[in-house]
């Protein structure tokens, strides 16, 4: 397979997760799939980063120390209402809570990555974002 180089024209994905292992492994996969990947370890950092470099899509862990994922998405959307988002959680009880928060999907950890990619790419295509 080919490994697309990150470029400014590539769709950007902001991964927000307080677990370093998750950030590293997800970044590697999405980078290999041709995304321009940014990562932050907190909701606060994500809101700040999105102000200066708004992403096409976000992959957000719901339960984090400090600002949670749902609040993070709400804050980012104040400036970038069209940002696509997928929530991830290890807690099935949070699935219901997050479902009304405007994300494309709420995925269990460990996530079904094939489906995650499919959801993101379809949504980007629908939004006219070139991948």
């Amino acid at each position, binding site marked *: *397979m080919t490994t697309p180089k990150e470029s400014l024209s590539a769709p950007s994905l902001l991964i927000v997760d307080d*677990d370093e*292992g*998750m950030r*590293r*492994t*997800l970044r*590697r*996969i999405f980078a*290999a*799939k041709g995304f321009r990947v940014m990562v932050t370890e907190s909701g606060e950092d994500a809101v700040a980063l999105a102000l200066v470099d708004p992403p096409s899509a976000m992959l957000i862990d719901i339960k984090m120390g400090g600002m949670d994922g749902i609040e993070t998405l709400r804050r980012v959307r104040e400036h970038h209402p069209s940002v696509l988002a997928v929530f991830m959680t*290890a*807690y*099935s*009880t949070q699935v219901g809570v997050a479902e009304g928060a405007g994300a494309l999907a709420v995925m269990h*950890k*460990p*996530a079904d*990555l094939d489906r995650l990619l499919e959801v993101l790419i379809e949504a980007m295509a629908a939004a006219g974002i070139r991948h």
Partner: protein
Amino acid sequence: MEAAPDAMVVIREDGSIFLVNGQAERTFRYSRDELIGQPIEILVPTQARVVHVELRNRYIASPKLRPMASGMSLNGRRKDGTEFPVEVSLSPVLIGGENFVASAIRDVTVQLQTKRDQSFARLLESSLNEIYVFAEYDEGFLHANEGALRNLGYSREELLGLTPGQIETQDDAAAVAERVATLRSEQESRLVFETVHQRRDGTLYPVEVHLELSEFQGRSAFVAVVQDISERRKLEQALEAMNESLQDLVEERTSQLRDAQEALVRKERLTALGQIAGGVAHEVRTPLGAIQHAAYYLRMCEDRLDDEMNEALKDIETGVRTAEGIVGELLAFGRTTQQQNSAFRAAEAVDAAIAAAMVPSAVRVLRTPPSVADSAVVFGDKGQVERILVNLIRNAVQAMGGEGELEVRAAPESGELAIYVTDSGPGIPEANLALVFEPLYTSKARGIGLGLSVARRYAELNGGTLTVQGRPGPGASFRLSLPVHEVAREVEE
């Protein structure tokens, strides 16, 4: 006066004895010299003496011939202090111009005794109890009443030829001797005991005996008043039986309470275990996710992996899937989600579960749903019901070592739907039947033994039961029962 059959005592008006006859000497056992000049009260019981002086003075004031104190029982007093019943008649006498009172005193001991014996005998005869009179246990009866003859079945002649020992066949000699000794020594005036009497026809019946040492026809004799207590015994036995059944009931209730308490303790333990399980599962999920993602990335780059690397990656992927299964099991066990109840066709849940359980091809799945059962509509959380069935099917597949025959059979049974999951594996040893639903019980090398525990909990949450069927021979069979949806049932009927 010497010839008179009665004791004659003549007194002066001051009450002193003037004259006595020989019969008076014999009756009162004083000599003539001892009596002459003494007040008449010497012959009167001490407690009656004061009254006697008063009565005597009144008589002397208006003397006439009459029996003394008619209607009252009078006693005389002998020299030795003993008393005896008497009848006295009085008459005024004039001797040499002086007034005297002559009293004729008759000892009526024998007459009284006879009278008493007669009334006693009448009493004995009229009693419904058995009454026996005997001098010794090994001597013939002196008397027995109608009640005794009736109950024992002997004629009077036959019974009077028998001894008490021949009626009380069950009593040993020592007990009898002790009774006799107790009464003879006057330690007790009356003994009450229970024993057994034997009828003429050999049958036995329980009796209560009131035994006294008394007098009969002038001699010392035992009087036994005997009551047939067969009826009382029957009542006592009935009461005892009632007591026992009451005790059984108490024991049963106690055991129910104990079971309820054990169930409560078990539930608390399960809750604690569930919390730990859920906590651990969540913590494990994140690093497990990282491993899975790393493996996913490597799979993306598989054209750069050699065969050995590829094998290693497969091992990682297999391990992650197993770990995910365990995490899922732990989460299901620890989960306390809200029930999402709805009415659904049982057949749908069975189909979904068979698909989700990913039964290996070496296992032949037999679905035997009679059409009625297949269309049965149950009410509950469909996801949980599927999970129950998935766990049962997976358990069955593992028990069979991944090959054999698996039967899923649904049958309506007394208002509920029963679903049997039966495998062709080695079966469950009798001793382990009670353990299979215990969390952490497992006979497998892999797995943590929560599958059946979760399944049972879900069954209960959905108003059903999950039991394991004890049966001889190989193969294990689990029975899930679910309440049939009321509305659906009404429509069917």
